[in-house]
């Protein structure tokens, strides 16, 4: 293996050449520790550094490179979007461990949880008719947010243990999180209607 030149195929003289590695997982891409709790600042910093190199605007004069740049820059955007969201980040971490969770189609068997969801949805539906809808809605959203925070802690604990059992247990936690995020989204729509925006 004396042929050093052969292994050095990257053109070092042209630093603007892009060689994206799409096989990296999102944590590797941003040089972050694989974990549920991450630093938003670090993520943002790494994200901007990468985009500064990969954005298609940097290759306006080279249409071939620009095509690569669109792909790479999109990959970075998608990775950033995924890691920014506590829900998608959780889903992605399970995915790395070969557990792919389809949030749209699973049914939850936890009876108490489902009862709670129904009640919350009823509350949301009736808020318009309440005495102080804006305040009520605010309270509701706050309690949803608290639930979500609780679920995030649960997920983090299970993730840190990372054995078969705990990862399997993390799946319903993820589903519950999803339910609450959806509810929060609906509450926001309701709020927009109340605020007339």
């Amino acid at each position, binding site marked *: 293996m004396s042929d050093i030149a052969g292994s050095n195929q990257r053109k070092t003289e042209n630093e603007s050449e892009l060689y994206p590695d799409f096989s990296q997982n999102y944590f590797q891409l941003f040089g972050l520790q694989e974990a549920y709790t991450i630093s938003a600042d670090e993520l943002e910093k790494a994200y*901007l550094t990468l*985009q*500064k190199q990969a*954005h*298609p*605007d*940097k290759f*306006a*004069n080279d249409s071939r490179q620009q095509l690569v740049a*669109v*792909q790479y*820059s*999109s*990959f970075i*955007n*998608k990775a*950033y*979007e995924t890691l920014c969201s506590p829900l998608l980040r959780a889903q992605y971490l399970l995915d790395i461990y070969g557990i792919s969770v389809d949030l749209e189609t699973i049914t939850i068997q936890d009876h108490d949880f489902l009862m709670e969801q129904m009640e919350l949805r009823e509350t949301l539906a009736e808020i318009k008719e309440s005495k102080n809808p804006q305040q009520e809605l605010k309270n509701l959203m706050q309690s949803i947010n608290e639930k979500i925070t609780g679920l995030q802690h649960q997920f983090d604990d299970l993730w840190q243990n990372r054995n078969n059992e705990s990862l399997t247990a993390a799946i319903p936690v993820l589903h519950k999180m999803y339910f609450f995020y959806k509810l929060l989204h609906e509450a926001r729509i309701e709020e*927009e209607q109340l*605020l*007339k*925006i």
Partner: protein
Amino acid sequence: MALLQISEPGQSPLPQQHKRVVGIDFGTTNSLVATIQDDVATTITDDRGNHFLPSVVHYHAETEGGITVGSDAEKFITTDTFNTITSVKRLIGRDEKELKPLGNKCFYRFYTTQDGGMPYIQTCQGNISPVQVSAEILRTLRNRAETTLQGELEGAVITVPAYFNDAQRQAIKDAATLAGIHVLRLLNEPTAAAIAYGLDQNQQDQERLIAVYDLGGGTFDISILKLTKGVFKVLATGGDSALGGDDIDYNIARWVLDQSDLSTGEPDELSLRQLSRLTRQAKEALTEEEVTTIAYRGKQISLTRKQLHELTEPVVQKTLTACRRAFRDANISSDQIDAVVLVGGSTKMPYIQQQVEQLTGKKPLTSVDPDKVVAMGAAQQAHLLAGNQTADNDILLLDIVPLSLGLETMGELMEKVILRNSTIPLIKTREFTTGKDNQTGMVIHVLQGERELIKDNRSLGRFVLRNIPPMPAGMARICVTFQVDADGLLKVTAREKTTNICADIEVKPAYGLSDDEMKQMLIDAQVRAEADKHNRALREQQIEAEQLLEMLKTALQQDGKKLLSDPQKQEIEQEMASLQMKKTQTDSADELRSAIKKLQQLSEEFAMKRMNVSMHNMLSGHSVDEFKE
């Protein structure tokens, strides 16, 4: 000391090291073109010194194919209304359904094909697409730039309202193609404004949140950006691509008709259009004055600021609602904003400035001319993209899609694939399957908008994926990929994955012109481009001739008698007269070029003599030794 300078004809006096690129602000009311000169963004004027090109295109009835663009076209607005297109930006990329809400605010007669294609404007020169009208304006700007920069343009950054949908963006890009402009990039107007202000640069290197409030003639945009050194990241955008000063003019016009008892039921479009020219002047006057009068059909109607505020209020309220929504989308409250930038002529109105200040609690920035700031930012970006700038001045623009993109699914519902305010470029894939056994085709209907029902969103195109291999229902795996590039333009591809037979197709969402139509337009444009090129070459020679004549005239006055015999002098003068004549009469650049050459050759000896004399004058009184080194 005026030496006779003789330069090769056609050779530009300054060597052009940079690529010739410009920024273009294609506006509803006014359009501009700017470039970087000596590191400063400057707008390019026409030969009369005007920075703005009124976005008005007149199609002449008498002269076949005669088209006038800009201020010369303006005078036809009232006399030949239907053949004089104004505010075409409000029409571009809109389908029939989307034109309806504009009601009699858009005053043209439209022609739409049976198959629900894009509306054309009926003129004396036939049915003209808004894309073509826009191309006329862009072509005029291109010619203006090429004359000033003395050569062919290598590219342009063209700005679009941030809130423009894909069809509108695509239509603008096509208009540029028709005008023979290579589009380096479409850039959102508010982002361009933020670049021009250089707001990413501040002493503390802090992160800053800014809002750009852009109310022009026909569009409203609000964008929230997060800036750090060299990075412009758009967080959220909102607006209305048919809301602006035009609407205020229209409200005043309605009011005038009510006041003057001239209204007889629904006012006719013609009088409204003519009247709104007057009310626009009145509105602009009230930016300075407290009260003004509108003279209409023999009546004098006085308009006060207070009344104007009332008539402006509905427009302002709409903009403020969009602002609140954008703040919300960006997950910030209005008091977190560090600075507000005002863009667009309508933000000169004191009432609007005051309302924006009230909303944000910040005195808005207006230090860069709100009319020019967009074109200037676009020029800066063009400069950068062309590689005319050093890497350390580099900036990163992270823009977003203003409206969600998605697909039609069961129940006439829209399923979103890319959500509004997602950072671009972005590629997303969705997987679908077949609903019937042995299904070999699938309709893919691409939409843009926020509503649930497909009928409430903008349909961008519908295409069929064919040749799906026959298999049981639910087995096929059809991947539909949405790709939005940095311009904000969408490309959709679909492919069946389980088999090796992959039917790949690509749609450029329909903005209405068929490929054939576009081809024909391009051919026409080619012809026009040839004419433009010819005209420019001619103009260059005319300038050349003028300069030569001017120089010779001065030189003859100063040294003619001294250095030339009478016949020699006469000969030159004769040739000068002949060039003078040629200059005004010929329309052949080549002919003029040879006439210039002839005169240059004839006067060469005279030039040499003058040179010698001046050398002699310079050297006299000095010893040669002084110049040895």
